[in-house]
């Protein structure tokens, strides 16, 4: 791995995204004249027109950024490098992660184009915030030192606090934004505390240096230095556990998922979670063993992961709001991902399993939320189970999509969720954590109940006659749903390519 100070070739994608932000801002400045120019030919209201224009602009931008990532790979010959004095890693397998996050962004965008108009959300603000958050996430998974890590994490999170509150006329949205902000601040406090403890223990902020200093036998156990090291790791973990919503740091999740605009919920549940997990993997599952600390971490991770799986799956059963149900489901899924790390085997295999699961989860959650967005109409939310009654009659396509999503979430073959779960459980079995595996398995069966419940409501309940939802053409949403559904099935039947990519990504993390 080469160490460079700066080479723009490695950061073409990020630079492109930054440029897109500038372009979007400028385009919005000219929105009025443009609208007036086309006013004669379009039937749309000004807001809708602006939203569509901004949406397509952002979309084109994202596609260009994706192309830039691929071009970067060609330009750098797939060789990774470390930039800016140990601040950022770039290139190589990381590009896979970046592409995945960008794809999550593109899917979010496709889901948003119509939704923003329905909710009267000003599109340009929304897309700008989305771009900022994406840029944060892309930087976060590349961060090589704690300052950069913290910066990127906040760059990813702060736009989301704002996006959650974008449904300005909806008090639920405001409430959840404030909640998320306050609790997010709280968790950042933990994170910073952890970082400063680690700095105190090791005198460095470069992640790899810190990990080396903490590894056995560099550090002697039962010394103040080791104590601070351990505390640092624990607080760092708490800060990150908040982002991926492990119990008991999860409490914001249902409220925020419910209150936020649905595409944002989808984005949060996949992109934020995946990039935060990439960081967790980098720090806790890296190739350097922590020696004595490992036993603390095995206990801690195993404990929190397991109660997360148990709690998320149990509480999801009683939810009547589908977004809330999916929130608890996302909590449970975070638990499963954390379980794969819990054995602390420090192998690429464990990280690979988590990343594979996370990438598969992008497709399934996007699909589940996509169906909800598809069924949302002007003045008609599709959020509760009641709203889904009898949907299969009128929209068999959407119902079929939801079925694919629910089955994948429940881990039923041949969906990608099944392959993901197998890998998680293989990690536990290889580490001889049988009891943990059995409990997790048991709760994955409990989970079936609420996933199936959605299907029962869609397929087997009579629709409420007074709530007729008229169909309307929603091409972008269809594209997003079809792409996700295809990915779910394809990756379930042919997981090998993605397994290889996850492996590449995993090996660059370390």
């Amino acid at each position: 791995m080469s160490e460079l100070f700066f080479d723009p070739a490695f950061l073409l994608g990020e630079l492109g995204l930054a440029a897109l932000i500038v372009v979007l801002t400028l385009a919005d400045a000219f929105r009025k004249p443009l609208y007036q120019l086309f006013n004669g030919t379009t039937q749309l209201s000004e807001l809708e027109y602006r939203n569509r224009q901004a949406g397509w602009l952002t979309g084109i931008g994202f596609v260009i950024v994706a192309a830039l990532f691929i071009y970067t790979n060609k330009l750098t010959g797939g060789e990774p490098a470390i930039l800016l004095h140990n601040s950022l890693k770039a290139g190589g397998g990381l590009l896979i992660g970046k592409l995945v996050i960008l794809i999550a962004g593109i899917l979010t965008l496709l889901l948003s184009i119509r939704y923003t108009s329905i909710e009267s959300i000003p599109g340009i603000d929304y897309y700008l915030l989305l771009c900022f958050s994406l840029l944060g996430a892309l930087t976060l998974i590349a961060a090589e030192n704690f300052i950069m890590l913290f910066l990127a994490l906040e760059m990813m999170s702060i736009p989301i606090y704002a996006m959650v509150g974008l449904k300005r006329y909806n008090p639920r949205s405001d409430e959840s934004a404030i909640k998320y902000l306050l609790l997010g601040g709280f968790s950042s406090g933990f994170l910073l505390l952890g970082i400063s403890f680690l700095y105190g223990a090791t005198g460095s902020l470069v992640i790899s240096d810190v990990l080396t200093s903490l590894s056995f036998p560099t550090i002697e156990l039962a010394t103040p230095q080791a104590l601070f090291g351990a505390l640092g790791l624990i607080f760092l973990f708490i800060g990150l556990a908040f982002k991926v919503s492990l119990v008991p740091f999860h409490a914001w999740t249902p409220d925020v998922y419910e209150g936020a605009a649905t595409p944002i919920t989808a984005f949060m549940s996949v992109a934020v979670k995946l990039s935060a997990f990439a960081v967790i993997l980098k720090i806790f599952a890296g190739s350097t063993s922590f020696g004595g600390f490992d036993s603390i971490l095995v206990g801690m991770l195993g404990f929190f992961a397991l109660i997360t799986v148990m709690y998320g799956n149990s509480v999801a059963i009683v939810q009547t709001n589908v977004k809330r149900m999916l929130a608890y489901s996302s909590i449970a899924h975070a638990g499963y991902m954390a379980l794969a790390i819990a054995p602390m085997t420090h192998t690429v295999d464990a990280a690979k399993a988590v990343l594979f699961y996370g990438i598969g989860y992008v497709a399934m959650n996007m699909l589940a939320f996509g169906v909800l967005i598809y069924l949302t109409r002007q003045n008609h939310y599709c959020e509760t189970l009641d709203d889904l009654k009898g949907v299969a009659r009128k929209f068999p396509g959407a119902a079929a999509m939801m079925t694919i999503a629910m089955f994948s979430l429940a881990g039923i073959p041949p969906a990608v969720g099944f392959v993901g779960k197998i890998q998680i459980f293989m990690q536990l079995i290889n580490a001889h954590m049988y009891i943990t595996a059995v409990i997790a398995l048991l709760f994955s069966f409990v989970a079936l109940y609420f996933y199936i419940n959605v299907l029962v409501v869609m397929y087997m309940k009579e629709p409420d006659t007074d709530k007729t939802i008229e169909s309307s053409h929603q091409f972008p949403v269809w594209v997003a749903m079809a792409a996700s559904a295809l990915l779910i099935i394809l990756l379930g039947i042919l997981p090998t390519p993605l397994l290889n990519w996850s492996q590449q990504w995993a090996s660059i993390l370390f």
Partner: protein
Amino acid sequence: MELFIIVLLPLIGAVSNGIVTVINAARGKQVWGEKTAGVIAFGAVAASFVISVYMVFVKLAHSEAISQTAYQWMAVGGLKLSITFMLDHISAVMLLVVTGVSSVIHFYSIGYIHGDESSVRYFSYLNLFVFAMLLLILGDSMPLMFVGWEGVGLCSYLLIGFWYKDEEKAIAGKKAFIVNRIGDFGFLLGMFLIFANIGSLTIADVNHYFHANPGMTFFWINVTAICLFIGATGKSAQIPLYVWLPDAMAGPTPVSALIHAATMVTAGVYMVCRFHGLFLAAPIAMHVVLWIGALTAFFSATIAIFQNDIKKVLAYSTVSQLGFMFMAAGAGAFAIALFHLMTHAFFKACLFLGSGSVIHGMSGEQDIRFMGGLKSKMPHTYWTFLVATIAIAGFPPFAAFFSKDEILWNVFASEYGNKIVWVIGAIAALFTAFYMFRLVYLTFFGEFRGTHEQEHHLHESPKTMTVPLMILAVLSTIGGWIGIPKLLSLGFIPNVLEHYLEHAVSKYGEVHLHHYSHSIEYGLMGLSVAIAIAGWFFAKRKYAAIKGQLPDPATYKGISKLLYNKYWIDELYMKIVVNPLKSLSTNVFLNITDKRLIDGVANGSASSWGRVAMMFSKLQTGNIQSYGFYMIVGAALAVAFIWIIF
């Protein structure tokens, strides 16, 4: 390659009909209607059947097993899984039964589903089911088998709830799915145990491992086998997980015939036979299989006696017959289990399709108390139904005589068998003959007890429905002849079945039969016949000459009340399992940790600004503090882990 075509044809049928369903609904016009859909679905399965016949009788004739690999599915932590299909003598029997019976039932469906608005969807599901079933049968590793295992469960669920117009069907579908998943948990657990111990999951490896002196302890081998058997009890509706099958009768009748009688429910039996190497190494598990099979055979036969819904009687009969198959497997007679599986597929499919024809003719009536005298109005249905009844009751030379007699003989004589179980099985056989003839007498004999309206509409079903009945009736008659014991045929007619399966099921250990003289064997055979005759005789005496209306079940007393209400098992499960779970999840999890849900619904509907203030006041005093508090508790817990080393 051929095996892939066999499996993929139904999938292609399912996908094309599925896409058309979506397009039809979206466009509001028909791309193609029920006729094309039916022909495609039937054609796909029939083609699979033809290729299967070719594969089994031409290709497999000269080899022990054919294995075809498509690609590597995944490689995870030392486990390499490939998409491989394997055809050996065990899967060959199942393959022919499934594709053959499916073809017949698909054909029948064309007539049955005629005029239903969602028939395209129906055929899509039906094909999807066959696809999943074929995966289950041909998959050469446990995960691949599990894909099919889950797939058939899903299709069963979709098809039970196919007419989701009434709540009962929806609930039945859900129940089937959930109960099945309890079984699946056992299956997966067994799979993990096997992987953790032997590091491979292909069927051949598993059987080899347990046959050749395994490193696993006796205890864990039995645990593993019992876990797999729990999976089988879920899928094959055995005690204690049988409760879903009778409810599953809410689905369309051809579905009951195909999935809930002939094919899917036998998957558990098939799986136990597949892993006979493991089961033979686990004597305790064998006893569990034997006893569960016998008890299920007995109890569900008693329940069947007092049911009035024609499909419910057949459903309990299916549960009971599946019990017989497990008795055979538990006695170590895996070939006989497969034999009975095959004959059962024929006569039970015939009975279900016959009941479908009756229900069709009776304008949807399913209660046999309001039938009677259908013999003259529906002659084809009557004759085929009667043949199948004679077959299931065990009259020679009809199919079940040979298979059921062999089961009882093996239970009697095998080293794994035992005499008490034999007695239970014999009594169950007696009840079988009784409730089946009761059904025949109440349905087809006596005077008509339904409404005038129904009598007016009463008609024989169309050819598309009666021809399949005839095919199945013929099979129910001659299907048993491939397994005529030497004792009866005196060696003149070869026992094809034994010859065919002999090697496949004795590869991993012989099961010894205790030695008995020929006279005992003849005696038992005679007893089987006597049992069948006795069952018929009692039924005839009680029900043949019945006059007037039958009593309302509400007036049942004593034992008949107990049996009519199925020993109140459903209610018991509701009380001891379902309700406690629900209250646990509501009271403990919801009320303590997520109070928001209850008032949240009310608040969500309000959008006035006035509410905002309230929300914020709530923020100040309520939730967010407790959320923060949870985090503090979590942090404290996390820090506590430090004591592990300090």
